[in-house]
Each structure stands twice: as structure tokens, then as C-alpha cells.
């Protein structure tokens, strides 16, 4: 299944997130990720939703039906060729400092805190795949806890 990112600008009102998520549920999708933040314009939020759908016509349907909500100002699909999709993960890792040194330069991460000799809290940013690769390389077995933001995206 193809992963899609839908970008929506909405009024920053209570209930808008409810409406958007209800529509996606009604259309029987499972949201992969959903991020909401303020936009440049006061009172307007920016929502990035990712979900799986191969059929372009169906994605257009979601977009049109989202646009129908009075609180939704504009909606479009962002594809990976013409936009950046990024997320941030905060990871509690049980590894020696030396083990982490190998990854400097190759991954965009930062040690937020060293809690003990072999316990680090790090922050890593990048594409979903990039973060997945980082975790695989570090070794999933070293991950004690992880928080990921979900995707946010910006057109090139």
C-alpha cells in the first residue's frame, strides 16, 4: 500500500480534529500518523495526516470531503518527490557511549542526556525510513523506550 501524506489547514477550533478523524474513520482508514501544529497565520492550524491508500481517486475523495468541512480551509496531498516528510524520535537507549560514536555523521542525532554509563537519551530526526534504519543499526534490543512524533511534511 502506498503511504500518503495529506496536508490540511484548518481553523484552530475545538471539534475540528474530531471531525477530521471521524471522516477518516468513516472512510475506514487507519491513521498512520497525525500531527497538528500552529501555522504562520494566527487561528489557523496545520495538520499532516498519513495513511495507506493505493487508489488516487480515493485520496482525492478524502481531500474533497475534508474540504467540505466549514472549518477546513485547504487540503492537498504531499508526495514524497515534491516534499520533505520528517519526524523526530526521542529514544532511551541502553548502550555504551562508544557504541553511539559509530553513528555520528551518518545519522542526525543528538545526545540529550547521559543517565549512566550505558543509558542515554537521544533525539534523532529524519525521514521515517531513516529513523527506522538508525534504530535497526543501533539494535532494537537496546531501545528501552521510544517516543516518535509522527510525520510532518513541507512542500519543496
Amino acid at each position, binding site marked *: 500500500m502506498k503511504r500518503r501524506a495529506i496536508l490540511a489547514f484548518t481553523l484552530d477550533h475545538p471539534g475540528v480534529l474530531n471531525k477530521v478523524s*471521524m471522516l477518516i474513520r*468513516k472512510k475506514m482508514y487507519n491513521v498512520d500518523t497525525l500531527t497538528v501544529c500552529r501555522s504562520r497565520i494566527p487561528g489557523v492550524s496545520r495538520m499532516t495526516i498519513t495513511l495507506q491508500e493505493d487508489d488516487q*481517486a480515493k485520496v482525492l475523495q478524502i481531500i*474533497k470531503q475534508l*474540504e467540505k*468541512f466549514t472549518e477546513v480551509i485547504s487540503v492537498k496531498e504531499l508526495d514524497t518527490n515534491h516534499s520533505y516528510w520528517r519526524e523526530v524520535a526521542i529514544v532511551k537507549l541502553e548502550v555504551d557511549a562508544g557504541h553511539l560514536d559509530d553513528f555520528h555523521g551518518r545519522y542526525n542525532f543528538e545526545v540529550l542526556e547521559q543517565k549512566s554509563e550505558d543509558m542515554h537519551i537521544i533525539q534523532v530526526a529524519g525521514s521515517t525510513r531513516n529513523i527506522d534504519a538508525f534504530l535497526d543499526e543501533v539494535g532494537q534490543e537496546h531501545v528501552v523506550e521510544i517516543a516518535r512524533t509522527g510525520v510532518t511534511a513541507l512542500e519543496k
Partner: protein
Amino acid sequence: MTGKKLLLKALKERGVKYLFGYIGGAIMPVFDEMEKLGSFKFIMSRHEQGAAFMSQGLSRASLSTADPQVGVCMSTSGPGAMNLVTGIADAHMDSIPVIAITGQVATGVIATDAFQESDVVGVMMPICKQTYMPLHADEIEKTIHEGFYVATTGRGGPVVIDVPKDVQNEQVSDSYTFDQATFRPHLPGYFYSPTPEREPVQRAIELINKSERPVMFCGHGVINSNAGELLRQFAEKVNIPVAFTLHGISAMPADHPLSLGMMGMHGTVEANRAIMDADLLISFGMRFDDRVTGKLNEYAQNADVIHVEIDPSEIDKNVRTSVAINADVYRTLHVLLGDPMVGYKPRRRWLQKIEGFRRVMEEDLKTEIETGVGDDNKLLMKSIIAQLSDLTKGRDLIVSDVGQHQMMAARFYNYQTTNSWYASGGAGTMGCSLPMAIGVKLARPDERVWSISGDGGFQMNAQELGTIMEHNIDVKIIILNNGYLGMVRQWQTFFFDGCYAGTPMRSPDFKFLAQAYGIPHRKVEKLQDIAPALQEAIDHPGAMVLEFICDPAEVILPMVPSGGGFEDMIVSHPRKHNDNLGQEGEAA
């Protein structure tokens, strides 16, 4: 000024004359104020669902008059608001502007499971066009005006305004001002584009001129934008036959030579066969729902589709369009009529072919209508409707319930005047007819209104006989009593080997029921008594219940099985034919 006063002031400014509803704790302040003002006519329904359908009736029937009104219903919180749900969902499916005002528990106790608290906004959100909950008296006027604006513009729909009790009583702030004349709702995300763009119109005209076997579709949008007369002119100008969706019926005269009658599941052979063979579909204000198209991947395979529709999300939803015109139907027809490039074509072969389709069932239906009775000499619904049509010359207002009788009323009444047919289409809500007829009568007091129900649906809102009694509302009530939930029985006949599970029904003696409300009742069992009984109801000044004892075995044909294509259209009763009737149906 208090919230409740401003609420009623805003309704008055929006031209509201009738308020339909039912009182309860959380809406008492508004009712109190309404009574003191004395400037609304309050119609108490006997169940909130009734109030929702009454307000629908008022909106639907008045839209084509010089005084279009938006129906307003009111209820208390919790159970009152929940009883509105079906009527609101129905209005949403059928794009009917309605305003529902529900009382809510006071802001201080919201979300504490207070007495009679329901999350009205949460429940209504997916089944209406917009919901509001004003939290201060200062927001009330703005909210009501915005609600009317949203309900009535673009594709119409219901708007729910949930007003906490303390907000109803609250005084506005000292600095409060509101000017209705200059008020513009701030809705940066709400667009609708009534004016058709040039480019798609030009491409549509090219397709129309090029086509050899075109069919025009008349949907609810034609009625809602009051474009019936323009559609007739356009059809005549280009000489293209017109098929109707359930809600497009009555937009132009049913017996117009270019009319193909209703399309879809219970549509006419001529409409459905013409669609199968068409090379172009020109659809005005409709949404290609599954009752209209049948199996999508077999639908109108060789046709280009021009889709004129005010709601952009309907375009390309079910059927791929060749040309999309996202605009108001009336304005689009106006442009098309004025364009010198749109030309007349004789289309002799196409129209001749269609004449052939007309003949497929013509004889059978004619014989059935003339015979007028089924096996046990019980009356046939189609015959009753045909006689009603003759007697009233097709000029009365028909408000139907949901079931076989609905399809009969859609098919066999010869609608002559625009916007004279009302029913629940998208939702198919049994019980809609009686309360909706009340709203229709209030909107069009000088016209005769018939409510037509089955024995099943009638009993779903029979309590509204009380409203009819109290306000002396002159609706002629027809119950087509076949002792069954007939439409479902028909499916059981066709797709469940005649296993009649949950469809036979014993009814009360409708005579006593009517009499309990002081309404005269006639029971008709013989063919020759149909016309006199109808005449008696016409002559009687006031409501009357006519109960016809109908043949439960009567079926409405043709029928395209649910999920089937038009190829699978059933044109004769399985008793007469041993066709393999194909797959099981889903629920009616």
C-alpha cells in the same frame, strides 16, 4: 438583553414563523420567552422526531414559493435531542436546510453526566452540516445567523445549535453590539461556487452537440434550485429525454413526451435501458447513489458523463465524469439555454429506440392498473395511486412514506406541478410522511396535501395525529394497508425464497385510532369504492384517514437487485417466471 431573547430575535429576522418542537427542562427559558413574545406559531409535535420532519416539510415545500422558509425544530437536552437524531440525519442525506435548536445542561455541569445530558454536538456532528454550541449570550445572534447561512447556501443541510440553559438566561456584556444588516459570517473554509465556469460549459456543449444517444438526469438539485421549468425548456431545446432520480420527480411534468420517469432500482424500463445504451449522460444536481446506479462497474459503460453539481465532493465520487460543472443547477441551465451553440437534433433513431423500451412493461402495467385487484380481490396500490392521480389531475402535493407504496406513489402519480413530491430518499426513513405532510401543508396552505403511508410506516409516527387534531391541519391521510412490511416482503419473495421473517404485521383498527383523534376514517376494500372515498376526502374540510386494504403479493417492478447491474433488471413476478433471480439481497 438575554440569550433567549436574542435567539428568538434572530429567528424572527430570518423570517421564521413556525417553531416545531417539544419542551423540557433545558429549553424552558426559550419557550417561556417565546410564549411572552407571542410572535411565533408554536406547533407541538408528539415526539421530537415528528418536529424534525415537520420542519423538513416546511423547508421542502416552501422553497419554490414566494416565501421560502427554513424549518426550525426545538427540543430539550438528552432524550429530547436524541429523538431529533433520525429526522436530522434524514435531512442531511436529503440536503434539506433545517435548524435544530436543542437545550443543553448548564455550562457548569457539562461533561459531568448531569441529568438529561447527552453530547449533542458529538452525536450530531457526523449527521448534519454544522453544529454549534454558543457558550455566551454574546455569541447567540451571530451563531443563529451563521447557522441559517450555512444551512441554506451551497448544498443545503441541517444545522444543530446546542444552547446551554445558563447561556439562554445570560445577559449580554455591556459592550455587546450586533448588526444583522452588516453581519457576514467568518468562514474562511466554506466555499461554494454557484456560477458555472465558461470552459467546462463549452466542453459540455460540444459533447451534447456531438452525442447521438444522450439522456438527461434530473436530480434533487433541480428542485432545490427551482430549475424545473428551465430544465423542461432545455430538454425541449436540445430534444433530449429526461430521467428522474427519486427526488428529481415533479421538477417537470411526469407525462412530458421527453420524460422517461424514474431511474434506478425501481425505475422504469425506459429510463434504465436508455441509460444502458446512452453515449452521454447529462446529470443535473444528483449524486449517483447506489439506488440509482446499481453495480458501478457495469453502469453506463459507453457514456460520457457531464455532471452539474453544487457539491464538489460529489463529482467523481461514484461515477467518473468527462466534464464537471461545479455550480448551481439553475444558473448552469440558464447559461446553457442562452448559448447559441446548443442545438436541436431530431434524434429519430434514439427516440424510436426508447419508444421500444417504453413498450416492454406498458401493457402489463396498464392491465394491472385496470384490473385493480390482486389474487384475493385485494386492491393494488398502483391502481389506487393512478386513481388518485386522475381524480386530482396530478396537481396535488404528495408526501410519501417509505416502502412499496412510496415507489408506487413515485411511479404512478402523474405529477404536473413543480415541487409537488416529497419523500425520504437518502435515508429512507419510515414514519416521515405524516409529520412531513404537516410541514408541507403549513408551507402551502392553499394546496391539497396527501400523506401516503404503509401500515408499517404509519405506525412509526402515528402519534402526530394529535398534532393534526390540535391544529386542524387539513392533510388527507392514506394508509395502504397490506398487512406486511411490504417492501421487505418483496425482497423476501425475490431473494429469500419467500421466507417472510419479521414482515407480517397485525395493525390496530385504524378506524378507532383515527376516531380517537376526532378524525374521520373510511376503510376501502372494493375497487369501485376507491374513487368515491378519495372524492369524499377531497370534499371533506379537514383531515381524513383513508385506509385501503391492499394485496400483500403486489410487487413494484421493474427491480434492479441491490448490487446488480441494469442487465439484471427483473420485469416480471417470480410466480410468473422461473428466472434465476441471482444473488441474495442485502436489507431493504
